[in-house]
């Protein structure tokens, strides 16, 4: 009987390092409406109840990747998670798991961004081409090889879902490995060998234990688990080829 619901309680894990030593739960009651997202509930708290609650958000339409958090213990984008699906509450809201909390629902993103920067996430052309030569030709079938992996919005939900990342923050992790695969699998790219070190490293694909929860929580169906597993095959091939030629697979 959702129509009868007047308000919903939210338990939010607060942490203000300038005021408190440890995180603590705080409860808020939010007026309910059927089309309200969890993000809108948080905005209500900040706008009307407690201006000191901090969280990131922007686009409201699940494309900017800012508003990932734990909702009832699961990684989710708050903008596309609806209160109606979580009734009767209380609804538990925490910062994304496995990341350092900077404050309230804000986690440190620098580690993720450094990993992303470290994989040469840009096209390293197989054949250089001038602007006058026009675009590279890429068939729809070739595009399909990268389309899903290029859809990652860097929301980091997969990291909050990944038990290996929880144990070892150095693990490159699902989202960045999916992005690495996106470039390696691009018909225009010739940079695979340059990215192999990341894959082969202890923190690369071999840290993954194939739990698959990363793909389950991905809001964009990127399926990072699939990307990681394809790259285990690539990494194994690379490893094997090194024994056949002094230069290994790096040509």
């Amino acid at each position, binding site marked *: 009987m959702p129509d009868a619901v007047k308000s919903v309680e939210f338990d939010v894990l607060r942490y203000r390092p300038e005021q408190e030593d440890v995180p603590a739960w705080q409860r808020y009651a939010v007026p309910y409406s059927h089309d309200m997202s969890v993000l809108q509930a948080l905005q209500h708290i*900040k706008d*009307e109840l407690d*201006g000191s609650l*901090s969280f990131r958000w922007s*686009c409201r339409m699940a494309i900017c990747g800012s508003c990932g958090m734990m909702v009832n213990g699961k990684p989710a984008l708050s903008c596309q998670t609806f209160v109606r699906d979580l009734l009767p509450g209380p609804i538990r809201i925490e910062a994304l798991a496995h990341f350092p909390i900077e404050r309230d629902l804000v986690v440190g993103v620098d580690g993720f961004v450094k990993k992303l920067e470290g994989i040469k996430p840009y096209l390293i052309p197989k054949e250089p081409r001038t*602007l006058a030569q026009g675009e590279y030709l890429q068939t729809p079938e070739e595009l399909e090889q990268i389309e899903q992996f290029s859809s990652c919005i860097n929301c980091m939900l997969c990291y909050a879902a990944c038990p290996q990342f929880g144990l070892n923050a150095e693990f490159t992790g699902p989202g960045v490995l999916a992005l690495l695969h996106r470039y390696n699998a691009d018909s225009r790219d010739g940079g695979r060998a340059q990215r192999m070190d990341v894959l082969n490293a202890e923190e690369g694909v071999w840290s993954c234990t194939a739990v698959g929860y990363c793909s389950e929580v991905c809001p964009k169906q990127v399926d990072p688990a699939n990307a990681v597993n394809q790259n285990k095959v690539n990494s194994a091939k690379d490893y094997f080829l090194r024994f056949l030629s002094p230069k290994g697979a790096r040509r």
Partner: protein
Amino acid sequence: MDVFKADVAIVGAGGAGLRAAIEVAESHPGLSVALISKVYPMRSHTVAAEGGAAAVTQAHDSLEEHFHDTVAGGDWLCEQDVVDYFVAHAHEEMVQIEHWGCPWSRTADGHANVRAFGGMKIERTWFAADKSGFHMLHTLFQTSIKYPSIRRFDEHFCVDLVVDDGRVRGVVAIDIASGEFRLIEAKAVIIATGGAGRVFRENTNGGIVTGDGMALAYRHGVPLRDMEFMQYHPTCMPGTGLLFTEACRGEGGFLLNKDGYRYLRDYGLGPATPTPRNKAMELGPRDRLSQAYWHEKQKGRTIDGPHGAVVHLDLRHLGEKKLRERLPQIYELAVQYLGVDPARAPIPVLPAVHYTMGGITADIRTAAPLPGLYSVGECSSVGIHGANRLGSNSLTELLVFGKVAGIEAARDAVSTPHGNPSALAALADAARARVLAAVAPRVDGERIATLRREMAQSMEDGCGIYRSAATMQATCDKLAELKQRHRRVRVDDTSNGWNTERLLAIELGYQLDVAQAIVHSALQRKESRGSHQRLDGYEQRDDVNYLQHSLAYYQGADAPRIDYGPVKITRSPPGIRAYGEAGEHYDAVAHAEEAARA
């Protein structure tokens, strides 16, 4: 205060800022670039652009056609020399970002595909499904990582420009995580902070789109140009304002009123052919479509919904397979947010504010009247959109003029020394003191959200799709009052680190200033042109008195002063702006005349 010395500082790291940063890095690898954004670059609102980016591509298309569509689409308030530059450089920029990896959708033979878009006579909109802005932004961000000379200041919130001795010499920003202030000295500064759509209630924009850069330049005396021209996008989600891309109609979608009737034929946009012809019906320009919705509502032919009157965007006839391939994000949004399966039911939509046509006055080199300052993208008024922007021109603008801004700022930086360090430090300290005093913690004032809501509602009421003097004046009065109340706004948060409430209070100050520029410019423009439509005796375009750019000058606590400047007309004198059958007729006449002249 911590100081960083850069050669070029760029405020805003969306599509325009990133393109500019890459240009500086490529053309002048020895120059250091400070790329400053209040979010991580990939969160910038470019990410939400859906439909695509225009560039003449097909053999039967021409630069002349793109020029004409843009100038007429802008109701002749465009800078025609700038439009010429724009259309001539659009295609190479599409190819450039393709070379950087942008996954454009393809034709069967592997070329980049193009789709139809509103107000464009020939299909020329490059697209990456319906996530074109997302893919462009991530491609640019990831490509920017290649360049060691680009030093990013992620999550740094800009609070002031440092202007000394007649020149911009840097910016002051808050490092959001720590709350510390930082002076970033620069020999040239590019503002690329996006639009200001969130000053209106129902809008498509992300929370970060608060006109920051416009307000920063405006407060230093740079006029904001053509601010009265705000674009309402005709197909948005009721309640949230989220966007259903124009590509829905580019792919063949219909707009229906409560009787299931394709009402656009009643507003000079017919004939209602089963597949919309280019520049007709659903492929008309956004201003005309939003205005048609308003008239349908007056006639009682819209559908009442929980969030206001709606019409229907009908995509059913396109079939699930095509929708999943061409409009996957739209499909998901409709299902997840509205519980509507667009292959099986029409989507309820209404117009919402989408784009700020005006902005920081910029010449063809993107330079502002203030030495050392450049602007690019939605925050800028370089002059290609006039009184109404055509969909898919703005993503292209980010690239074409992002590159120009990079070149120009780099050139400027090479020949300019740094400012006097102690003078700049003193200015930065003063800026910090001013900001901290303005938004100090205070528990007795009104909440930020109260003021923001009143502002946004007043802008919608007074400065919406149709306007009249009385309602605009009421909004002017309301904004003046809100500026007073803003001085005592409540701030609960006493922390330094991640004090987002403080940032919201500063943003609200930016928004109020920009809102004033919008509504005062609108009040003084006594004609109807493009997206600025009046109901109080000024229903016609008036080229005698108002074929001019409005220029809003900041006057502190007082209302802005509105002045006017000339419009650059090179070869297309103001003509009749018509679409549908009438438009095809006038186009044919215009072409015959051109041929005769040649």
